[in-house]
């Protein structure tokens, strides 16, 4: 598990609590309980219908990259259509989340890198940058064309040439 800034902060607080217990003479191992913690990157998925309505209590199946056949985790969305899971850091690759309800279903692929971060899927359609560039070039072309014609010297009327006579 990769520690984060948040993990260090929590750890310091719990260590301080243990120190004060010793100073006050309280039993540090009273009933043998122990609380461990781990801080893991988690993924929040929100599922909703095209109308914007949440997919409440929908079936969720999470598939790990190394086993797309069997769900790695299953569960239900909450009332707002949300579901959270923590992918295993040891399994980088495409995680898949399938959400189904009443005969409708969809699947999303989440590429998780080896360091636990999400890598955006390459877009196979026109990217926003591509679209923006096309718009910019269009405007540039219009402007250039306008300037070209506005600065072009007007053609001077030419006298009609003398008719050519071909002598045999």
């Amino acid at each position, binding site marked *: 598990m990769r520690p984060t800034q948040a993990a260090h902060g929590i750890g310091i607080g719990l260590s301080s609590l243990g120190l004060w217990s010793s100073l006050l003479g309280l039993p540090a191992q009273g009933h043998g309980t122990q609380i461990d913690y781990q801080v893991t990157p988690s993924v929040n998925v929100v599922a909703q219908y095209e109308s914007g309505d949440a997919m409440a209590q929908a079936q969720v199946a999470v598939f790990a990259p190394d086993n797309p056949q069997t769900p790695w985790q299953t569960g239900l969305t909450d009332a707002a259509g949300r579901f959270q899971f923590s992918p295993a850091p040891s399994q980088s690759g495409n995680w898949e989340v399938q959400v189904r309800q009443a005969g409708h279903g969809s699947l999303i692929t989440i590429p998780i890198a080896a360091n636990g971060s999400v890598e955006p899927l390459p877009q196979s359609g026109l990217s926003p940058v591509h679209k923006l560039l*096309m718009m910019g070039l269009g405007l540039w072309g219009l402007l250039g064309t306008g300037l070209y014609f506005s600065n072009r010297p007007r053609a001077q009327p030419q006298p009609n040439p003398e008719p050519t006579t071909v002598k045999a």
Partner: protein
Amino acid sequence: MLKIAITPAPRKDLFHISNVMLDFRSLLSRATRPNLAPSNASAICYVQALKLTCLTLGGLGMVGLGGCSVARSGNPTNLPEAVSPQTKGQLEVRANGEDFVRDGFTSKDGWNITFDHLYVGLAEVTALQTDPPFDPDGDTVPQVTAALEQSEAVVVDLVNDASPTTALVATFDKAQSGRYNALGWRVVPAPGGPSAGQSLQLVGQASKDSETLEFSLDWDQSYQYLCGDFIGDQRKGILKQGDRTDLEATFHFDHLFGDGEAPPEDAINQDALGFAPLAALADQGNVTLNRSELQAQLSPEDFTQLETAIAGLAHVGEGHCQQVTAIAPTPEVQP
């Protein structure tokens, strides 16, 4: 081979999963960062466009970019030039009309419908491996790493050919192993047989109260679909070496007639035609109509609803499909 532009199919019952977020700030920033790294092809387009802009006032640069897009549109699935000849397993493509077709159901307006036959003509059945996984709800073009195609037309009866629940459409005995996470097909008029000339033919009975009607509905429109991963109780299309798997073209006929078990305000019933408008056209207990007769006799609103519902029948399990437009003219069929 899919060669034409893609637009989303008319679907009002769809939903989407969105807002993939990570809890930690650093991960969130990476998760939501737009994809600024263009593909090699896009990068080439950019360079070409910038050069043209410098040389020809930019207007020609736009043409250059357009040229790149046109070139990609010419091969929207980016099929590889040659698929590896490795033969690893068997893949079947099957068609499913679901329980509605096999067992009958009650329409949104209370008609109990059973089918004797439900013929569908299918052609250009194409199983694809795509990476990244093709998203039929997104404005993307599938990036194909392996493809299998059966071009010839096949007619299946979703009622009687189902064994036990699905009808065989295509078999690929020497399929390259991997994840077949996209499926395309055309719905085409049958080249022969009992439904010759029709892409869809629905034959059965509808009853309500004491009235029973025989119906035979013919539809000769062609469609082309490109769908994503199968969504259902089991995953499909995962082919291991020496193994077999299947994909499924699923037809949701509750989208046409509605579902009497669902609330009237449910999207499935709001969008469906139902059977009552067809029952109103009965002649001596029979509703025997083709597409042009339906267009002439139904109200324009009902016919539009019927057209939209039929175009939206195609699914992969519960997963969605894009409807591909610009279908070639229907070929002449000799019955």
